[in-house]
């Protein structure tokens, strides 16, 4: 476990504007972030949020409008892509169609003028690593999607870059393959020790694979942190909504302070820590994950809450509750809710410290 973290990539005040004048687009607005060596770092966000732009800036495919990028403490923004020790796995692989698998993978090494024995050794090594050695002679159009993906990976790894950039490489694969590749990629990163910068819009992918995640929206970084941090403590509603299922319930602050409480529009009182800038009587939005809610069948007929929807998920169930015309979503293990059905009157329990007040 290394204590000293080396900065692999430093993004400092990076802005990227496409076009000029009235038709210009600000793809990235003053982005700041640091990626450490040997990290699996994910850039997560919806389409068009700027994550791919950032990746392309690191690779050198676009020039920067403002700001600086450092690779292992060296400035790289004035370098063309062929001078940056960074390699990319493209979304649709971009394999050279007129070269076979071996030639594709050996391409970077050849351009670096390595000698032939080293090229052969390294290429075979990497092909072995992605289990594509037997298909070395095939051309890309003779490969399946998954196989092309591995070749793209091998091609980017063979020159032993300092950082590997992956632009939504799993998006064209079917579900089972995608899930298998997630594990493989994670293992690959661990084994090679190369810093991976991974771009995706799939929050499940980000949560399962990453060491740290940066959530991006409209060119602005919303939050950076470990998956569990982002999941448990989203910094704003966008992040809360984007990652996992969420309840965003409106209410009014009843009591301030760390042991404060709110009255939800849904009718319930909930105890939670109130941030310092919120005063009694202020309108708040409370964030709580569906799996944090406990429900029990109501003993009295006067309960405000009833079940308005029940969706069987296999090992769990998704229960939609309606209370005072507000919808609350709960996800519970199947054995906890086996006897519940639509229309049942319910008591909700909001266990303490499972909810928080959240900003817009």
């Amino acid at each position: 476990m290394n204590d000293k973290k080396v900065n692999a990539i430093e993004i400092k005040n990076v802005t990227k504007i496409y076009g000029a004048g009235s038709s210009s687009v600000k793809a990235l607005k003053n982005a700041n972030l640091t990626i450490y060596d040997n990290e699996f770092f994910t850039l997560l966000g919806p389409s068009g949020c700027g994550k791919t732009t950032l990746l392309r800036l690191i690779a050198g495919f676009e020039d920067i409008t403002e700001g600086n990028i450092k690779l292992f403490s060296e400035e790289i923004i004035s370098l063309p892509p062929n001078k940056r020790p960074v390699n990319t796995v493209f979304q649709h692989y971009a394999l050279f169609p007129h070269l076979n698998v071996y030639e594709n993978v050996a391409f970077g090494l050849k351009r670096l003028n390595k000698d032939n024995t080293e090229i052969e050794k390294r290429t075979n090594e990497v092909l072995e690593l992605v289990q594509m050695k037997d298909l070395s002679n095939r051309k890309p159009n003779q490969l399946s999607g998954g196989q092309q993906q591995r070749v793209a990976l091998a091609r980017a790894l063979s020159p032993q870059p300092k950082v590997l950039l992956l632009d939504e490489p799993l998006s064209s694969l079917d579900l089972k393959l995608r899930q298998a590749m997630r594990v493989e990629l994670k293992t690959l990163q661990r084994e090679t020790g190369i810093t991976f910068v991974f771009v995706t819009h799939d929050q499940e992918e980000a949560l399962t694979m990453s060491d740290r995640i940066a959530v991006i929206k409209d060119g602005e970084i919303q939050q950076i942190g470990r998956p569990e941090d982002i999941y448990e403590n989203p910094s704003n509603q966008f992040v809360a909504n984007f990652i996992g299922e969420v309840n965003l319930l409106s209410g009014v602050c009843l009591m301030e302070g760390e042991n404060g409480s709110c009255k939800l529009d849904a009718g319930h009182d909930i105890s939670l820590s109130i941030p310092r800038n919120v005063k009694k009587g202020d309108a708040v939005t409370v964030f709580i994950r569906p799996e944090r809610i406990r429900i029990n069948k109501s003993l009295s007929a006067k309960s405000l809450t009833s079940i308005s929807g029940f969706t069987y998920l296999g090992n769990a169930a998704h229960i939609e509750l309606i209370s005072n015309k507000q919808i609350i979503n709960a996800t519970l293990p199947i054995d906890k809710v086996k006897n519940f059905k639509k229309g049942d009157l319910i008591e909700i329990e909001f266990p303490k410290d499972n909810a928080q007040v959240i900003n817009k």
Partner: protein
Amino acid sequence: MNIQGENKTQNRVLGLLPLWSVIGIFMIGPLLVMAAVSLMESNVYGGVHFKFSLNGYRQILFDTNLFGEREFNPAYIIIIGRSFILAISATILSLIIGFPAAYFISRQSNKVKNILIFLVTIPFWTNLLIRTFAWIIILGKGGVIESSFNFLGLLDDEGSLNLMYTNSAILIGLVYSYLPLMVLPIYASMEKMDMRLLEAAADLYSSRIGLIRKIILPLSMPGIIGGSILVFVPCLGAFIAPDLLGGGKKLLLGSLIQFQFSYARNWPFGAAVAMFLLSLVILVLFFNAHINKRHREYEIHG
């Protein structure tokens, strides 16, 4: 993409320099010189005197009679009119002949489609002169048609059908020359037609006529317009068909112009007529662009 350290503007200029210099000097240049020549005085020995004169254009409408007065001369107006009528007729005929064929081809399987379209395209890549010349053999005195009529005893002893050197002969030649250019765009727009649309429409309209009117025609309209322009414009300026099949007696704009530079040696007049033809073509193209824009807007706003 804007890779760091690349001078995009320099690359663009260098890359387009050959294009601009060749077409600029050898296409735009000549057009400008021709425009200038149309405004100069003719030299009886061929070529021009470097002197401003509107005689080139005047000659289209007027003639100077023995008394030095200007008289209206309908001859060239007739030629212009003939060119127009023949071009429009050829376009309409091509449309009638080509439309069903384009439709039929577009309904075939992919393999057959490709082969058929290839067969339609071949004539376009062969020599127009030769293809038109073949019609002399067919239409001419003692040619295929006359011989067959003769053989069938449908012709009297000294008679001949006199098919050559008529407007009809030119018309046939024009249609023949540019027919593929009508078929290809119509085929292209028909190909894009979804079979399911036809199926759905077939449920709604009980008659085939309805199907044609309501679905097929509107959807292939861009192709029809495109094809019509591709036929009309060359027909307007055609030279080979009127020259070979019209025998130089029935002049069209194209042969009229060529004549000024071969036998008549009246460069300013030839240039003036050429400028006139060019303006007509530009007009047609602008009209086409306008229609395309309206059509696109219609598609967007429904």
